[in-house]
């Protein structure tokens, strides 16, 4: 009996458990999945929690409900991986030998990377919304906040879901309008990038929306510290931006387990082949989702497309066949723009997001890079798709793992 061990039962790990159990004979392959948590969080939901659009129950389900029969869920903490000897050392002393390892340990925020970020004002006037606790504390703050300077801020790239802070700014605009207090709130969007997004066409469309919603943008801001006394953020060039309420996306890092195992880079991300998703250093280790260092978005949609390709590659690898160099960096993201509308973007390593229709070329019903109510409905419907199809490894109809150029308006 051979054994596959999956580290992490988040979006990527859970999908791999479902795909592989479906494809591999139970009498030949044991599959174990390890996670120290018991709850699975629908992370895109964190965006909606502060604005009272979602409740905690919408976001949290038990991990075990999504792990298929025939896969052992090990609810315990990992000390480290010893890749040279093919085993996982658990904190409780157990050693788990593996024939094939899948790293799906994700990424998390590290506010301690910036001086003063996790200081006196943390969760008083400085908040994150990339954790459940952070989003919930921010919801409680927003319920009673009377207005002032709201600064929405990205510390450094890469971050999970790079459009989430923009969506936060748009939803805040909408939220304060609904509360009839938009005139009491000044919203500023602060980014280390030179514009609202990394790709030119989407940047233009998004900056137009920021302008329309009277959200000021401060770009090229590389934060040095948070000044808790004077309530401002200061960059290395000495630029100061004052705030009454700072909503920041702290530095994102891969899991500490990868650092302890000597498998990560300076941000604990695992060096990974961007097309096959095989570890660059160990041939029987594969990496998926936010844990990799590949230049694709750290997003559930990316993990979903990766999972379909990685499953095929692992099946090839097991049979000793050549793997497919197939992953193209495909990402597909809804961007909430407030007021019950959303944009949709679809892109990959080489093709930037452009206007067009999705998933049916020329028909839609979803429109790329344009605000529409249908896109917003798509985003809300996605929560159902996530819990009922995506995690279970059910293929989402009409949406292929590799990006399609059809129906898109490239120059």
């Amino acid at each position, binding site marked *: 009996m051979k054994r596959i061990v999956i580290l992490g039962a988040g979006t990527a790990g859970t999908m791999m458990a479902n795909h592989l159990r479906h494809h591999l004979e139970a009498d030949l392959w044991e599959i174990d999945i390890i996670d120290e948590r018991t709850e699975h969080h629908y992370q895109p939901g964190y965006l909606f929690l502060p604005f009272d659009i979602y409740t905690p129950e919408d976001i949290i389900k038990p991990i075990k409900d999504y792990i298929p029969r025939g896969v052992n869920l090990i609810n315990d903490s990992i000390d480290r991986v010893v890749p040279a000897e093919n085993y996982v050392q658990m904190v409780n002393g157990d050693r788990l030998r593996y024939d094939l390892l899948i790293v799906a340990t994700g990424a998390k925020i590290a506010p301690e990377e910036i001086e003063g970020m996790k200081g006196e004002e943390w969760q008083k006037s400085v908040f994150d919304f990339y954790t459940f606790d952070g989003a919930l504390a921010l919801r409680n703050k927003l319920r009673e906040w009377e207005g002032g300077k709201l600064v929405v801020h990205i510390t*450094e*790239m*890469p971050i999970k879901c*790079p459009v989430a802070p923009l969506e936060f700014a748009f939803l805040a605009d909408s939220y304060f309008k609904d509360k009839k207090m938009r005139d009491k709130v000044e919203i500023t969007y602060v980014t*280390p*990038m*030179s514009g609202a*997004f*990394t*790709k030119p066409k989407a940047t233009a469309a998004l900056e137009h929306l920021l302008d329309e919603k009277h959200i000021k943008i401060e770009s*090229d801001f*590389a934060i*040095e510290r948070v000044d808790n006394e004077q309530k401002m953020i200061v960059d*290395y*060039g*000495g630029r100061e931006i004052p705030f009454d309420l700072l909503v920041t996306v702290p530095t994102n890092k891969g899991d500490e387990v990868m650092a302890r195992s000597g498998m990560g880079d*300076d*941000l604990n991300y695992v060096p990974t082949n961007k097309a096959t998703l095989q570890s660059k250093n160990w041939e029987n280790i594969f990496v998926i989702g936010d844990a990799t260092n590949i*230049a*694709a*978005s750290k997003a559930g949609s990316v993990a979903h497309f990766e999972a379909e390709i990685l499953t095929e590659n692992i099946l090839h690898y097991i049979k000793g066949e050549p793997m497919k160099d197939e992953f193209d960096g495909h*990402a597909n993201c809804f961007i909430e723009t407030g007021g019950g509308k959303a944009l949709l973007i679809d892109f990959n390593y080489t093709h930037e997001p452009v206007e067009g229709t999705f998933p049916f070329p020329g028909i839609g019903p979803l429109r790329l890079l344009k605000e529409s109510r249908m896109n917003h409905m798509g985003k809300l419907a996605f929560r159902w798709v996530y819990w009922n199809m995506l995690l279970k490894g059910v293929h989402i109809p009409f949406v292929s793992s590799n990006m399609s150029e059809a129906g898109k308006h490239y120059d």
Partner: protein
Amino acid sequence: MDKQIAGTTVQVNEEGYMTNFSEWNQQIGTELAKEANLDMTPRHWEVITYLQTEFKNDVPLSIRKIGKSGVVDIKEFYALFPIAPLKTASKIAGIPKPASCI
């Protein structure tokens, strides 16, 4: 597109980043620095040389990496190239605009 600089023609993209590093030389770097209102000092060149070495080794650059490089700390990097330092320095070094992962 073509750009006339320091008496030669080099290839640049629409944002002014050189697209063929082999066309770069220090005179071109000096001229590119002038366009960014910078006078190059030996210290500037040390940083530029570091960036070019990393580029040749296919190491993606970030402000964080430069801060940990041991060549220059972030504070000094900003003092040397005050406005959008990584982009400005990359342009002067004749290497592509740093890609922030998305």
